[in-house]
């Protein structure tokens, strides 16, 4: 946050690469432009259109959940031998998407990447909503979600306690910690901007609401000093946290003995995949939104290109993991491991496997070309392909590993039911619904951090 003064050699580079903010802005215009989206400007028709669609889809989710709670999880397609399917695929998919938000807000902050400034608020919001969607799946998969608190240790009349040696318990702690810390990080980042909105709002109602949310922030130098310390510490805490969360999610599989799950490469493989999927989702969302709200001056071509490069890099890590997975299965000399890979290549779900390879390993290679990286439409299409690919990856890992394990007599096939699909698509609707509400009522770009990257923000020491 406090990289107002760039290194001297950065100035040289600035002329070659696009800027992180277009020239001609000052503290006032940056403030007005971002706060106007919330306070002054008319909500664009595109917002109402998106809101209506996502509201309808969210209602489908509500119907599904109601039916699920009244009937039981038998309405889903998973049954022996495939006990885990859409519920876990979608959980892992959503959690993974969330990881890019933390990466942008925390890890890039520690690496002093100033370009993160205009996308971090948005990406953090995306994290929160993705974690909310993810949490629904295991919660409802318990079958009796009203007893979900049994997962936490508390003195109870049943005289029992949870099994802390189980990766599923680790998951409960990891995901709830992740959700809580992401929410704290997000709220802390919003406090100074709430104060800005409080001072700009015209209606009494919004003055009071934003005033309460700002906690009486007044921009005191002493407050800023402690604030910056907190922000940096939270970034330092969130960085190992985000790596631990997907590591623990991968333990849900790796600690078991199922061929296709029991692999030591899982933690780094899952973390890379999570960041890959997350950046695809950030690109998928920012490219249309910056256009819709005319924010091209703040979210510039440089942001899009940098994110595309990160997507390409993590995509290569994921492709490497696929190769290692295959190699290990062959090198193990273990009949079950070898069959697992053979079944992926040539089994009944082979078309999904090869589609996955196309989506995650082949298609993103077009990002090597400069012309593709300079086309927002092309990057947007690649992001969709990657999002689909990452979902397929979890499908291949979960049901395809389960449907044929050790005993051929217990093999089976899996197919999702209608309710599986409505539940999955419903969470996508809920995600967009929350995101659109966020864009409407909160500043989607961190205003105070944008002020710090303006050239005027620099203290001229020779005069001071």
């Amino acid at each position, binding site marked *: 946050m406090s990289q107002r003064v760039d290194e001297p050699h950065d100035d040289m580079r600035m002329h070659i690469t696009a800027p992180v903010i277009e020239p001609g802005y000052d503290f006032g215009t940056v403030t007005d432009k971002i706060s106007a989206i919330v306070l002054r400007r008319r909500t664009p028709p595109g917002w109402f259109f998106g809101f209506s669609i996502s509201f309808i889809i969210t209602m489908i989710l509500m119907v599904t959940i109601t039916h699920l709670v009244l009937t039981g999880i038998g309405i889903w397609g998973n049954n022996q031998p495939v006990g885990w399917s859409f519920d876990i695929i979608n959980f892992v998919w959503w959690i993974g998407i969330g990881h890019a938000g933390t990466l942008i807000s925390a890890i890039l902050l520690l690496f002093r990447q100033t370009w993160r400034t205009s996308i971090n608020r948005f990406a953090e919001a995306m994290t929160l909503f993705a974690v909310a969607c993810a949490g629904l799946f295991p919660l409802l998969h318990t079958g009796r979600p009203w007893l979900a608190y049994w997962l936490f240790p508390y003195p109870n009349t049943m005289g029992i306690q949870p099994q802390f040696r189980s990766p599923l318990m680790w998951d409960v702690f990891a995901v709830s910690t992740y959700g809580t810390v992401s929410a704290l990080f997000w709220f802390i980042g919003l406090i100074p901007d709430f104060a800005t909105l409080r001072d700009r709002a015209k209606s009494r109602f919004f003055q009071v609401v934003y005033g309460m949310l700002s906690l009486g922030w*007044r921009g005191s130098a*002493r407050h800023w*000093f402690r604030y910056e*310390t907190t922000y940096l510490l939270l970034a330092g805490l969130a960085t190992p946290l985000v790596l631990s969360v997907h590591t623990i999610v991968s333990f849900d599989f790796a600690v078991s003995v199922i061929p296709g799950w029991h692999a030591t490469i899982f933690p780094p493989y899952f973390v890379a995949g999570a960041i890959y999927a997350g950046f695809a989702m950030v690109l998928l969302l920012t490219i249309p939104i910056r256009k819709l709200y005319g924010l091209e001056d703040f979210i510039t071509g440089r942001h899009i290109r940098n994110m595309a490069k990160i997507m390409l890099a993590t995509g290569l890590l994921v492709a490497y993991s696929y190769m290692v997975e295959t190699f290990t299965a062959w090198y193990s000399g273990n009949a079950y491991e070898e069959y697992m890979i053979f079944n992926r290549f040539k089994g009944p779900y082979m078309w999904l496997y090869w589609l996955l390879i196309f989506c995650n390993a082949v298609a993103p290679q077009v990002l090597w070309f400069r012309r593709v990286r300079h086309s927002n439409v092309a990057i947007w299409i690649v992001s969709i392909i990657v999002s689909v690919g990452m979902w397929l990856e979890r499908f291949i890992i979960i049901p395809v590993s389960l449907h044929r394990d050790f005993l051929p007599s217990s093999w089976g096939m899996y197919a999702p039911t209608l309710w599986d699909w409505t539940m999955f698509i419903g969470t996508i609707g809920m995600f967009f619904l929350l995101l659109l509400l966020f864009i409407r009522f909160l500043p989607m770009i961190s205003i105070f951090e944008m002020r710090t990257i303006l050239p005027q923000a620099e203290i001229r020491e020779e005069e*001071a």
Partner: protein
Amino acid sequence: MKRSKIPQLYGLMAEFEDPTDVVTAARRTYEEGYRRINAYSPYPIEELSEAIGFHRTILPLIVLIGGILGGLAGYFLQFYVHVFDYPLNIGGKPLHSWPAFIPITFECTILAAAFSAVFGMLALNKLPQPYHPVFNNPRFALATRDRFFLVIEARDPKFNHEETTRFLQSLGPYEVIDVET
């Protein structure tokens, strides 16, 4: 927003348009011997908190202690549950199986440290604080937009209404006004 019938002077507030000017002014004020001073800016300025003589906080220590306590609590929770409260003998494996306790210990460390950071910062900053005398200046709304403010409180031992006003005027502000409590 006056709370009493006889308004008392909280201090003098000088408004600046440029970050460098407010840092220079804050340094001059500190050199002049004023200590009950504060500066307000729309974004964090490292030099500004240094200029008013504020460059240490115990927050990192609070976070460290919070993290350590969280980690210990997380570990001992699992230790207590699995060794004393609800021991389960599975295949003769040890009850105190510490490697399996590490992930939750780690998560508890992070959670407690993050809570200490956030609530420690709010407590040290005395937030939430809906009312503060500086808000009495209507122009102070610009402190969250593009203006910078320097305040010398009336309870500063060196404070003298006329002299301090003259001193602040000499620093080249946009204007200097009295702030009432």
